[in-house]
């Protein structure tokens, strides 16, 4: 069985260690926050200018001056801080964010990522995605392994306009966990009920299957 969005988020949450400063993108990455256990002490960075993003507000807590990068109303966690957009991206570009989680349309075996633009469709802009992939020390991409029609999104070379060149080292899909190094996808874990052959069929880029592929623990 392929994983649900929630299960992908749950697996990615295991990458988050106590003490981390983490930026979560929109979509599946946002869900990751729901699966971080209480004994893991972290701060979520929101690139519009908030370090220490809290839960969504109650009706009484709603404040139009307090939103996240997805323009949703949020709260500030204990120990939070506010700052300008330049300061926010100094944190990102300066490599101070420990982990960034973001979605993608395509990733390739060199670690390049396409996540912001599909030609001929409305182009909304890259927002902070190009800064995040260029600046973060550690990036995990959350995505489906294939398109709805079954075509691989893990390619030998991205076909869509890039968000970043050779910057991705880890991908968590609805089928597997893979590392990208030496121009290849290295299979590390498979989802329950998925075989290594399924991964071979679903991966267009160069795939290396190590001897000790583990089953994902969820």
């Amino acid at each position, binding site marked *: 069985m392929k994983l649900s969005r929630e299960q992908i988020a749950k697996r990615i949450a295991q990458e988050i260690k106590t003490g981390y400063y983490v930026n979560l993108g929109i979509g599946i990455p946002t869900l990751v926050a729901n699966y971080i256990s209480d004994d893991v002490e972290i701060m979520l960075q929101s690139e519009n200018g908030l370090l220490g993003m809290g839960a*969504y507000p109650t009706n009484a807590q709603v404040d139009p001056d*307090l939103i996240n990068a997805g323009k949703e109303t949020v709260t500030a966690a204990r120990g939070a801080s*506010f700052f300008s957009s*330049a300061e926010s991206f100094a944190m990102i570009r300066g490599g101070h964010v420990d982990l960034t989680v973001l979605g993608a349309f395509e990733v390739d075996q060199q670690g390049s990522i396409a996540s912001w633009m599909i030609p001929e469709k409305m182009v*909304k802009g890259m927002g902070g995605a190009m*800064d995040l992939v260029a600046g973060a020390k550690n990036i995990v991409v959350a995505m489906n392994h294939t398109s709805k029609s079954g075509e691989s999104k893990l390619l030998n070379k991205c076909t869509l306009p890039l968000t970043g060149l050779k910057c991705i080292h880890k991908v968590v899909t609805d089928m597997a966990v893979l590392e990208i190094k030496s121009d290849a996808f290295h299979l590390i874990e498979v989802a329950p009920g998925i075989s290594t052959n399924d991964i071979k069929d679903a991966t267009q880029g160069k795939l290396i299957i190590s001897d000790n592929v583990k089953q994902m623990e969820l």
Partner: protein
Amino acid sequence: MSGLNKVVSTYDQALAGIQDNMTIMCGGFGLCGIPEGLIQSIYQRNIKGITCISNNAGVDGFGLGLWLEKRQIKTMIASYVGENALFEQLSISGEMEVILTPQGTLAEKIRAGGAGIPAFYTATGYGTMVAAGKETREFNGKMYVMEPSLIADFSLIKAWKADKFGNLIYKKTARNFNPIMATAGRITVAEVEEIVEPGELNPDEIHTPSIYVQRVIQGSFEKRIERLTINESQ
């Protein structure tokens, strides 16, 4: 307005000197922290040919969406513009030029402009279409793109509190692009929620020192929420 007192009482005074074909920076992230009255006022004055620098372009009928209605923007420099249908129409038809800029690069272009730095190198966008035609250079084994900085004829910003000299304090995430745009405008106009006497703001807590601000006007704000998200479990 005399001496160091920057307070003006009308939008005519706040926008004195504004003309067609100017470059205008407009603070805010989405609809959060936008100078609502100044935007409205430019709309009413029907200023045209604007090169607008703002992270986003408002929504249909509110914020910078108003300027789109009257086709006031010639060129839009922004990082994310997906929130309104009219924008899509004007950009596809070619009526408006759109220069999409990564958000961090946009912020740094403005910060650098305000600090008198003409350009800088960043890793952001290297190897992507954003870097097309731009100078690239290697530092310590990594490739970077040269990005020129930005300044504006007018910066229209929103702050929470000002004193009469133009020292500013912002509130929560309504700060966003406002403090850097304050530094990058030849004329910076701050629309604020409250104006106090000089000395009433704690100097340790001022976000934008008064030197960057030419005019201060008391505004009134709707503060429309773009995406109301509520925690139902509490």
